[in-house]
């Protein structure tokens, strides 16, 4: 059973909705720019961990305007620190996907003692002129699945992005998706390089970098930027997956994460 609680931070101006499930040591999952969906990857992780999945500020129902209380990345990182304190997670493993991967890495750089282990799945955070990150906020909505997923028709795509019919459900999904992109976009516009390169050396957590081989949003060359800058970081690439390998290959990625976090490999 997924538990749900709302954690106020930032003088109660930002309300984090946190989904949690499972048993065992704590794992925090930070979602990407398309909002949080409880998915088979998280289910898989709950077999070994207590998974805490907070929603990015502004993306929770009934609290869309909370995002306006944050001015920039520093505010966001401090909010996450407050959240972890309130949840009693003094030392914790953090897994982040895409935009959530960038936030996870920032958190690990700001609080190296708090983030014990770090898993970054196709994270953002750098910019290379020779291999530009695609600005998905400017894509035609119909083209978005083709950029995020190897198989844009698959279940993983519809699970993350919502139904295309009936019209009412599609409009609700569109609203949720647009707002999730808008509120996360605040921290990465117009380019996702917001200075992580100056801070990433502070990360001391053992780090696993996971990359979908067919990532069409953030080319896999960006894996090097992370692996070369974080001491001892390891890279695992996932065949048959695009920008969201944990959704297209949930068993494989969950197994890698489990083995990495429990030190079985």
């Amino acid at each position: 059973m997924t538990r749900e609680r709302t954690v106020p931070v930032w003088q109660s101006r930002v309300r984090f909705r946190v989904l949690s499930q499972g048993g065992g040591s704590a794992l925090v999952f930070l979602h990407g720019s398309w909002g949080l969906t409880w998915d088979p990857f998280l289910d898989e992780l709950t077999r070994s961990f207590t998974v805490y999945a907070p929603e990015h500020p502004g993306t929770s129902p009934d609290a869309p305007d909370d995002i306006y209380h944050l001015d920039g990345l520093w505010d966001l990182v401090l909010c996450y620190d407050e959240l972890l304190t309130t949840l009693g997670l003094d030392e914790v493993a953090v897994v982040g996907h895409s935009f959530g991967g960038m936030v996870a890495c920032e958190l690990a750089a700001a609080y190296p003692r708090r983030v014990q282990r770090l898993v970054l799945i196709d994270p953002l955070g750098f910019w290379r002129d020779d291999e530009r990150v695609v600005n998905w906020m400017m894509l035609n909505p119909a083209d978005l699945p083709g950029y995020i997923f190897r198989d844009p028709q698959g279940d993983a795509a519809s699970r993350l992005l919502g139904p295309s019919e009936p019209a009412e459900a599609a409009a609700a999904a569109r609203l949720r998706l647009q707002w999730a992109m808008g509120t996360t976009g605040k921290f990465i516009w117009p380019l996702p390089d917001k200075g992580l390169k100056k801070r990433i050396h502070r990360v001391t957590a053992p780090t696993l970098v996971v990359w979908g081989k067919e990532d069409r949003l953030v080319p896999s060359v960006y894996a090097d930027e992370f692996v070369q800058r974080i001491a001892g970081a390891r890279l695992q690439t996932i065949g048959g997956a695009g920008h969201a390998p944990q959704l297209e290959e949930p068993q494989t990625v969950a197994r890698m994460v489990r083995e990495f976090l429990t030190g079985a490999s």
Partner: protein
Amino acid sequence: MKISAFHLMPHRELPADFEKRYESVWVTPPWWELADARRVGQYYNWTLDELLYAARLGFDGVCTNEHHQNAYGFMPSPNLMGSVLAKLTNDSHVAIVQMGATLPTSNPPVRVAEEYAMLDCISGGRLVAGLPLGSPMDVNLCYGITPLEHRERYREAFELTLKAWQAREVFAWNGRYYQLANVNLWPRPIQQPHPPVWVPGSGSISTFDFAVDHDVCYCFLSYSGAKSAKSMMDSYWRVVAAKGREPNPYRAGFLQLVVVAESDARAEEKFARHVEYFYHKCLHVPGPWFSPPGNQDYRSLAASLASPVRRAENPKELRYRDFVDKGYVIAGSPATVRDRLVEEVVKGLHVGNLMVLLQIGSMPHELTLENMELFAREVLPDLRDCWSDEGWVNHWWPERLRGAVTPAATVGVAAGGA
């Protein structure tokens, strides 16, 4: 009624297959393939000559606006144009309507307050201060402003601008986006407490509230005509009523594309290809670029997803007659144009500040002058008295020009081309 001539300053000679070969007219069109600086210099001079000609013909105002990195209308600094117009029209009663300099792209935004004050000084108090939010293509895509912050920045800059014009003392601005320790504008505008403010919008409900709360003239710069704007402008007037303001038609501005000729048939012969050029090439922009996520606040986004303002129809599939039938363009003989403008735009939308776009797309200089001249001679005089019988005061027009009408100069077409 006040009637102003609007100009976009478009590229007039894009290749015939432009919209097939290139991704967009905005943000990414390659300058080196599509333009030549000397030729573009000619466009700027034509634009200025056309607006000066409109001023001489007796239009009440001349309008320029700001856009970036595009072939649709490239006056990155409308105030450079406005400055020329202000100086060269000092003998007339024409208003300098800047529609205008975009606050979120000006940093710090007091730059706009300063330049507008300069224009008001140079023109002897003839400035209308348009304070647009700016299009997402300009502000978000070209100038890098985060979509979610676009409106917040605008609102802060708007408050700062109004205060900078009026404050009697040096003040400090400790804003969220702008911090200035000593704001003390030099010069200040002639018009007191400040020049009339127009806010262009495109139908966001949050902009209706903003416009009414700040008691400014809300302007809909539309390319799809009065028919498709009707429900939106009705919502605006409902907000005006709900907030207890009088339904003064001068609270509203509207931009309409107009072509006029001796007859409806002649209008089609003369202008059809220029109208199609405008809709097929000048508006060739990928749809999602108009609404990057976060640009609309949550409430407006929810409302627009529930009932989209923009029509589903694709202008690229429409031809001249469709544009005319649907009211995108009001076209034809002087009688046709006059009747449709009054019925659909002026009365239909309850508009007191009308802007007309008379240079459209590829329309060449001489033809533009003809369009302006015929409009000024045969249409404009009959529009002027609209609303006169109701006794409204146009608080959103420079005070010294409110009653004034510039007699139409007897200028031939060639006079504007010098």
